[in-house]
């Protein structure tokens, strides 16, 4: 057992057998998933690519209606992320992807719909996905660490113009939403994200711990 910071490493060697069983089970139902359904199950990979924006997605996200953002030409890294994992996982469609904005880190952000899921993908080949209903509630959110702090990113529904990132003590930062997407870079430890929805209700989504940034490759 090794320990890494706040996390405790536990090598799950026994998971090999479980994984093999799961893989076999997944293959057995792959044909059914390829036939397509409204909601993809990542555990039943491969899922068929979404062919048309779903009503539940377009009614809450202007960027997916074409009312905001623009048609996307994905970067090679974003394309690779979809083809290697996200299309098979949740049916994320490169053809239906929309460019939303350039983030505070200089990376372009694309909103990519899948079967019952919405993904936020960067041109650096990073992506996060959650079920459409969860994204409507603000849980289409992710984060990564840099040498200077933490970069956060997320998708929020129509009617949200700004997002506040809060941290320990009185620390906070407010950022604007563009084409349903927000990004923020903070030097404090973020603990939650708040925003006021079109329903005038304050939504608060907690931010979990984010791994420390990596160092250079070991020499030799």
């Amino acid at each position: 057992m090794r320990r890494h910071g706040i996390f405790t490493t536990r090598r799950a060697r026994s998971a090999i057998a479980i994984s093999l069983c799961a893989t076999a089970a997944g293959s057995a139902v792959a044909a059914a998933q390829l036939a397509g359904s409204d909601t993809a199950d990542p555990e039943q990979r491969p899922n068929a690519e979404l062919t048309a924006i779903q009503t539940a997605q377009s009614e809450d996200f202007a960027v997916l209606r074409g009312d905001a953002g623009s048609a996307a030409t994905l970067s090679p890294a974003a394309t690779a992320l979809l083809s290697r994992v996200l299309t098979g996982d949740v049916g994320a469609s490169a053809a239906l992807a929309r460019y939303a904005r350039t983030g505070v880190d200089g990376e372009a952000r694309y909103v990519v719909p899948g079967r019952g899921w919405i993904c936020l993908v960067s041109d650096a080949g990073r992506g996060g996905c959650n079920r459409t209903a969860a994204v409507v509630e603000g849980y289409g959110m992710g984060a990564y660490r840099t040498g200077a702090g933490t970069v956060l990113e997320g998708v929020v529904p129509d009617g949200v113009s700004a997002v506040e990132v809060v941290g320990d003590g009185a620390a906070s930062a407010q950022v604007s939403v563009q084409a349903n997407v927000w990004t923020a870079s903070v030097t404090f430890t973020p603990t939650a994200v708040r925003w006021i929805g079109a329903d005038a209700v304050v939504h608060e989504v907690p931010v979990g711990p984010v791994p420390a940034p990596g160092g250079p490759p070991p020499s030799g």
Partner: protein
Amino acid sequence: MDSIAHRAAVTAASALLATLAFGAGPAPAFPTYCDVNINTSWCGNGENHAFVSNQASYTTDSTNVWVCQRLLYADTQTVVPNSNCNYNLTSQTYSGFFQSEAEVAQTSGVSRVIRGYATT
């Protein structure tokens, strides 16, 4: 009793169990790994590969779970840049130009089954 015959029988039984568990020949541990209950811990199997992507996901139910993925440079504690976290599914592509170990984690405070998926 610890005769040679007894030891041979134990060895044979162990081999049979291993075959039943992993099938014939070396067992591929990727692309799917972990897929077991974890809680505030990193989970991997320690194998070194030239990964081009790594992913952590929680899809057992509709609960929103903060999941993270990372690579470690092979046989080190050094985290490869571009680890990231997201609710329920987080992914990252990598160059594949180096050997590394893939790991996933979750920090909900409750033990949950987190699936790792890494490709080479």
